[in-house]
């Protein structure tokens, strides 16, 4: 710019000096000064126009040339639509897939919470799955991320290094609350997170409206206050200003909404359904009937703190560990002789807190990384393809380049022209890729988080992603534009013109073949991956879960949030059973704490009476009489739970076969008694059921015991109000035939019992099971998609190279045929060339694929290596693709007319 202005004044001065000299000459010749000046001006001509034309010599030349190059490039691309389309599609898919995955990775794994200065936030612990409510016991490795209220308070008091130290409920996602605006009829099951009073201050947030929580809200006896999320405020209440200060019924109890959280804030961790309400920890005991809130030995809180400036993390880590050990020392698990040994190992690894609690990230991280690798491989294949296509095209245009060079075009101009072409292509491809990325990321989100609302992950590619995509595409363009451009420019025009098509560019052809071999190898790896993940998914889906999902509906309910106290529950369950049995078509009405294939569970440490070795963790489910039938669990021995097993009847239990195997070595368990270590005789085993899978398919042979829902261990002397195991979480309705409006019927029936008894979630049993396989299905589908893409790209690449070589060898093939070669022989010759490249690709790809299985083994279900079926499938797919890619050029080769081929040059 400066240069431009300098030239402008420079030119003005130059013209002025010209005029002065001309005027001086005229004066010397005797003209009057005024006339001389006038005449000199007249002679000079249109001054501004001349100045402008002169300036143009400098300014626009480069831009003009670029425009010329671009126009020419566009014309060239239009002239070869097949080439252009192939390259653009390849780039769009390659870059698009990468950008889509990167968008997701960026959003899920790399994004900071939308809070002030996320860099100075520290998470005490490094495990987002150390959840949710549990007794603080000893641990072999001593790592803790989940703490009790008391521990939190001690840490907060003793660690002045933290400007603020906040605590937040670990398992809120499993404990929805029921909220109803005062005066409104419908109650809704929503997400509520209990947090410390300094929660919002720690994150440095400002309210959207009203105020955020303060320390005074989190004192025992403080009037219950809540902060609503911005999204809930907007979506459910249309941003109604009157919400602030209004009373809501949270689990039937009045709570004042004091303010709205800032827009975009989705809590302290990424979640499929972020919290709708933030409530103070101290209100939890009364609102959620959670007695454990003030139990110093029950862990249920995560901690995130903001460190003061200048605090070194090393010494802080030491101090955190020491303070934790101090806090744990007085607890029951750590005061025994044995427990004391574990105390020195107790620690909470400090980890960056700016990205929040990594629960979701830990769950999806391995999948996303795998997808990134796969997308990277596809991009590699795409690049190889484009390199090949550009090479072929560059070589095909050698004669053109020679002519241009002979006509006086400079080598640098030719190279620049070709580069412009490839960068233009890459740029266009990048743009298309962005479109693919946008659509792809949306699709990925839907596949990864089906049915998620208010998901704090955006499909819109960020600037980082756009930059990434463009850098990638331009790099590809430059990289693979330079080689052919260079080769073309190297050609001595005279040689190229003279020898025409008969030159053999052996180095280039070797490069091309190498690229094709590489593509074949990579495709095989991806195909094997696709095969493995599909196999894994089909194994998962065909696993015998020992249940029956036909005509079954799973209804999650929350009687506790609806305001029922422990002593009212027996009557409630009887009412539910009666009302639903009265609904036409309903066969069984199961009521239980948990259902099969649900991602939450309750485990207890159990012993068998008079059986010293029989002890360990067992899954614990409370259920009513209809329950086993309603989920399709079959009885193998004794009896199931029945209507006689009331709260006053003798304590009984039904165990699964895995329990019998693991605890009793297969011995007949009927009549034995089990219970907690301090009261082993609580429940008598009356029956054995099959190993229906609960929680997770990987735990399909986990020991479990089932207890009638209203029965409590005789040894449990705690008030009934504190026994959370009495609260059912689910109903399972079995019907005689599919009922379309079952959801509506269910809601109506429940509402007729109590309007606060809302449906937390309604799904068919099949849907609930399918959700468990979402991740696997996502991976299987995407690996399939990418495998197919890779195969397609490799086929195109192989076709391009074979077609090009046939074209180049046309005269040679002509001579062969003139000398008597059979058509079949020619076809075989061409096909052989293609097959050899594929075979080489296989030779490289097979060992690589076998090696790669190791890295994904943990993500596969019951598959340790690529079996013959997967391998054969991948190889056959590649072989078929090779034949398809080879047969078209081969037939063209066979149809060469010897006479014409020989005459061509």
């Amino acid at each position: 710019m400066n240069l431009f202005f300098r030239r402008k004044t420079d030119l003005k001065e130059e013209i002025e000096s010209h005029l002065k000299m001309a005027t001086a000459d005229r004066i010397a010749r005797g003209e009057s000064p005024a006339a001389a000046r006038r005449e000199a001006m007249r002679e000079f001509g249109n001054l501004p126009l001349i100045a402008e034309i002169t300036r143009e010599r400098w300014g626009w030349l480069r831009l003009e040339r670029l425009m010329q190059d671009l126009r020419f490039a566009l014309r060239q691309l239009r002239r070869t639509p097949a080439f252009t389309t192939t390259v653009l599609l390849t780039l769009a898919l390659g870059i698009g897939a990468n950008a889509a995955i990167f968008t997701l990775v960026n959003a899920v794994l790399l994004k900071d919470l939308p809070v002030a200065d996320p860099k100075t936030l520290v998470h005490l612990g490094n495990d987002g799955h150390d959840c949710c409510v549990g007794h603080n016991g000893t641990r072999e490795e001593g790592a803790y991320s989940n703490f009790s209220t008391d521990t939190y308070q001690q840490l907060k008091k003793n660690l002045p290094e933290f400007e603020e130290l906040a605590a937040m409920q670990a398992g809120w996602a499993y404990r929805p609350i029921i909220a109803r605006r005062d005066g409104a009829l419908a109650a809704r099951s929503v997400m509520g997170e209990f947090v410390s009073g300094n929660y919002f201050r720690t994150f440095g947030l400002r309210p959207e409206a009203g105020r955020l929580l303060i320390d005074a809200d989190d004192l025992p006896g403080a009037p219950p206050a809540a902060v609503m999320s911005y999204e809930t405020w907007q979506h459910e209440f249309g941003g109604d200003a009157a919400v602030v200060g209004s009373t809501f019924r949270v689990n039937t109890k009045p709570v004042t909404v004091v303010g709205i959280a800032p827009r975009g804030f989705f809590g302290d961790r990424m979640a499929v359904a972020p919290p709708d309400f933030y409530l103070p920890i101290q209100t939890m005991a009364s609102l959620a009937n959670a007695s454990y809130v003030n139990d110093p030995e029950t862990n249920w809180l995560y901690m995130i703190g903001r460190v003061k400036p200048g605090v070194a993390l090393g010494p802080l880590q030491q101090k955190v560990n020491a303070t934790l050990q101090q806090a744990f020392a007085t607890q029951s698990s750590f005061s025994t002789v044995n427990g004391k040994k574990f105390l020195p190992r107790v620690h909470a690894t400090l980890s960056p807190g700016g990205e929040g609690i990594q629960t979701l990230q830990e769950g999806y991280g391995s999948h996303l990384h795998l997808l990134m690798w796969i997308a990277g491989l596809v991009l590699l294949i795409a690049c190889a393809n484009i390199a090949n296509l550009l090479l072929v095209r560059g070589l095909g245009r050698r004669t053109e380049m020679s002519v241009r060079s002979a006509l006086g075009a400079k080598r640098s101009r030719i190279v620049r022209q070709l580069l412009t072409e490839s960068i233009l292509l890459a740029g266009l491809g990048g743009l298309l890729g962005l479109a693919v990325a946008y659509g792809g990321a949306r699709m990925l989100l839907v596949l990864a988080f089906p049915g998620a609302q208010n998901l704090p992950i955006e499909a819109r590619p960020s600037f980082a992603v756009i930059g990434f995509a463009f850098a990638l595409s331009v790099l590809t363009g430059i990289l693979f534009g330079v080689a052919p451009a260079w080769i073309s420019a190297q050609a001595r025009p005279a040689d190229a013109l003279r020898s025409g098509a008969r030159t053999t560019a052996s180095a280039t052809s070797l490069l091309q073949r190498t690229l094709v071999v590489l593509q074949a190898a990579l495709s095989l790896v991806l195909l094997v991956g696709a095969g493995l993940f599909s196999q894994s998914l089909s194994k998962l889906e065909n696993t015998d879960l020992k249940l029956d999902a036909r005509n079954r509906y799973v209804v999650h309910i929350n009687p506790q949030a609806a305001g029922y106290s422990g002593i009212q529950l027996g009557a409630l369950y009887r009412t539910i059973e009666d009302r639903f049995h009265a609904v036409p078509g309903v066969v069984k009405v199961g009521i239980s704490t948990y259902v099969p294939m649900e991602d939450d569970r309750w485990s207890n440490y159990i012993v068998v009476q008079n059986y010293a070795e029989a002890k360990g963790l067992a899954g614990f489910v409370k259920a009513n009489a209809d329950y086993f039938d309603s989920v399709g669990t079959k009885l193998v021995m004794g009896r199931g739970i029945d209507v006689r097993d009331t709260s006053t009847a003798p304590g009984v239990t039904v165990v699964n076969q895995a329990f019998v195997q693991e605890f009793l070595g297969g011995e007949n368990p009927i009549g034995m008694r089990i219970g907690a270590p301090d009261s082993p005789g609580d429940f008598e085993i009356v029956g054995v059921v099959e190993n229906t899978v609960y929680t997770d398919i990987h735990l399909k042979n986990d020991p479990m015991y089932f207890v009638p829902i209203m029965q409590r261990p005789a040894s449990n002397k705690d008030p009934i109000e504190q026994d959370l195991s009495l609260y059912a979480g689910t109903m399972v309705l079995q019907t005689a035939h599919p009922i379309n409006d079952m959801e509506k019927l269910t809601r109506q029936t429940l509402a007729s019992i109590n309007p606060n008894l809302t449906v937390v979630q309604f799904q068919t049993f099949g849907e609930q099971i399918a959700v468990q396989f979402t991740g696997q299905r996502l991976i299987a589908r995407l690996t399939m998609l990418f495998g197919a893409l890779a195969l397609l790209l490799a086929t195109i690449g192989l076709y391009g190279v074979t077609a090009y070589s046939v074209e180049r060898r046309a005269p040679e093939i002509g001579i062969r045929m003139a000398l008597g070669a059979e058509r079949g022989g020619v076809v075989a010759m061409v096909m052989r060339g293609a097959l050899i490249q594929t075979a080489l690709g296989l030779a490289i790809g097979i060992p690589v694929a076998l090696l790669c299985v190791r890295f994904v083994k943990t993500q596969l279900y019951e598959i340790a290596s690529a079996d013959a079926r997967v391998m054969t499938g991948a190889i056959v797919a590649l072989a078929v693709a090779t034949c398809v890619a080879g047969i078209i050029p081969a037939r063209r080769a066979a149809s060469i007319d010897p006479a014409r081929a020989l005459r061509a040059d």
Partner: protein
Amino acid sequence: MATKNSYQNRIELVQGTLDMLILKTLQWGEQHGYGISQAIRATSGQALQVETGSLYPALHRLERQGWVKAEWKQSESNQRAKFYKITRLGKEQLASDYERWGKMVAIIEGIMTAERGAL
């Protein structure tokens, strides 16, 4: 020559030869724009009048191509002026321009003097 109100055309018309003439003039020594136009006029016996509308764009193009170099100096009449000086590249260009010019003249001459039927 071209019409008076279209400088653009005039550049185009004389471009090849104008470059050559300017470079030739500069071979005698460095000169400013006014001096170049005066010199061409004088050496052509007043026959060639280089329009400023062609001269300055040409000079700046030559400068841009590196065939001439420019420098501000005092003229003999003590006037500050921008002096152009031919470069090594410019000399080469002049030689090749002149050679091409010679060939062109010869070819045109051949055509103009060809006997009918010699084809």
